[in-house]
């Protein structure tokens, strides 16, 4: 079984985000970038399936400019077999990404597609689902456990109030949540081996997909700073305010 994993290059989760003074966007100049944590979990899951003998090949793909090859090499160091970079300088929306990935799917014919549930920059949580719809595939989002069984995948997913288990026919798209696994560290020998694994580059423009933007980012601002509220004198006053003013308790 071939598994396709999609990864995105995003700001490292340790970096404190700063909005540019002109409010055009977030300031990414010289900030540390990394593989999106949810995507990394997806890579790890695919590699584990390969180690269990269930998958025969793990292909990892990223859409972006040349810089994302760094993240593709990280994925290769974690155990993926080969990488594809769909090259574009533009920042693309989930719908466009899903359309480009559809082309990759048609080419690669994977049985299972693993993706992060969302990227920690845009927090859209859309691409996996859109990709599933465009290809008529079943989807299992927010996966915390998955098992392949007789041409189907059983996935346990996190929902409000607990867990839900679904059975999906393959090919299917799974998006990962935090508790699915803890990614391994990339070892030095694997990092070195990764440099020699195949990484193919394809221009996005050559894939014949309409990549026009459907939304326009008008501005980005820092969140409003919380202001100090009022000081209450007694517990009774507090309870009364919470009940009648804030209406957060009954």
């Amino acid at each position, binding site marked *: 079984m071939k598994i396709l994993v999609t990864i995105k290059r995003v700001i490292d989760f340790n970096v404190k985000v700063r909005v540019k003074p002109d409010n055009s966007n977030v300031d990414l100049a010289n900030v540390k970038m990394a593989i999106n944590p949810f995507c990394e979990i997806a890579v790890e899951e695919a590699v584990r399936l390969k180690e269990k003998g269930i998958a025969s090949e793990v292909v990892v793909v990223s859409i972006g400019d040349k810089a994302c090859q760094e993240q593709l090499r990280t994925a290769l160091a974690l155990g993926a077999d080969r990488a594809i970079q769909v090259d574009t300088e533009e920042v693309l929306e989930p719908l466009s990404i899903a359309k480009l990935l559809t082309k990759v799917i048609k080419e690669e014919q994977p049985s299972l597609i693993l993706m992060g549930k969302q990227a920690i920059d845009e927090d859209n949580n*859309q691409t996996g689902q859109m990709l599933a719809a465009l290809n008529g595939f079943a989807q299992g989002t927010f996966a915390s456990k998955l098992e392949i069984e007789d041409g189907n995948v059983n996935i346990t997913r996190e929902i409000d109030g607990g*867990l839900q288990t679904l059975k999906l026919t393959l090919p299917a798209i799974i998006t990962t949540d935090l508790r699915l696994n803890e990614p391994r560290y990339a070892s030095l020998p694997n990092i070195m081996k990764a440099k020699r694994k195949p990484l193919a580059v394809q221009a996005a423009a050559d894939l014949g997909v309409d990549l026009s933007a459907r939304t326009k980012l008008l501005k980005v601002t820092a969140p409003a700073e919380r202001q100090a509220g009022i000081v209450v004198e007694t517990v009774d006053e507090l309870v009364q305010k*919470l009940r009648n003013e804030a209406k957060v308790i009954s």
Partner: protein
Amino acid sequence: MSILVFAEHDNSTLKTETLKTVAAAQAIGGDITLLVAGFNCQSVIDAAVKINGIGKVLVADNPVYEHQLAENICLLVSELASDYEHIMATALSTGKNFMPRVAALLDVAQISDIIGVESSDTFIRPIYAGNAIATVQSLDSKKVITVRATGFDAVATDGNAEIVTLDFVTDAGISSHVSDQLTESERPDLGAASVIISGGRGMQNGDNFKLLEGIADKLGAAIGASRAAVDAGFVPNDMQVGQTGKIVAPDLYIAVGISGAIQHLAGMKDSKVIVAINKDEDAPIFQVADYGLVADLFDVLPEFEAALS
């Protein structure tokens, strides 16, 4: 303008967050229709018709919708979409799961997790985990939108909408439900709780965290802790709220004996209402608390528990 709002529910109760999504729809303006898709969900329908401000409730009551499988629901919604300019759902499990499929089928963008409406085509949404706020304009003629409930106030429930039963069923047949395991503990999960009471170094030891339990019971709250309390060994680290612990955004966050270091604030700053109880009036937590009580927590906690009944 006509707007379709998907009702989030579990076949027995209508989620109150749906009322906030309707509020968001009202902010956009237009005729609002609610869709209830489920199975044996009469009690949900009964609640739905009472929502203020909606014209009709469309009902799709069928076994294929019992577990809100995304593959089935999205076909239903995209079938109905031709009559509406805006299709909206709450950004909860179900809405987050199926709505992007609808957008893809309609070949339009989706705007996720909006916390504000500027106009019928311009919305405000958090990015970078809420550390930046984006104002986004949709260029599509149809808008597919999920709504973050904490951004809006619920509409009233004194309405009386018309019910329209749908006569077609959409079954993709590529997925099936196996089981649900819903958490049955007395305390809600820290990450999902709508009320949280947390203790900090001021609690002085792990035993004193018992003082929070009665209050948590009465409020249906989860109990959290600051990193200082965890590092001092008072409580285990899965209770930690903060930059390196859990990031929470409940309706009510009560910080007891917590100084309010920025690492803690990073974990709870998006709470709707913050209450601080601390005997140090200079503690930074008071800079962000909506209600502050400068007092000894050992005096306050029993009083607080007694006052809540």
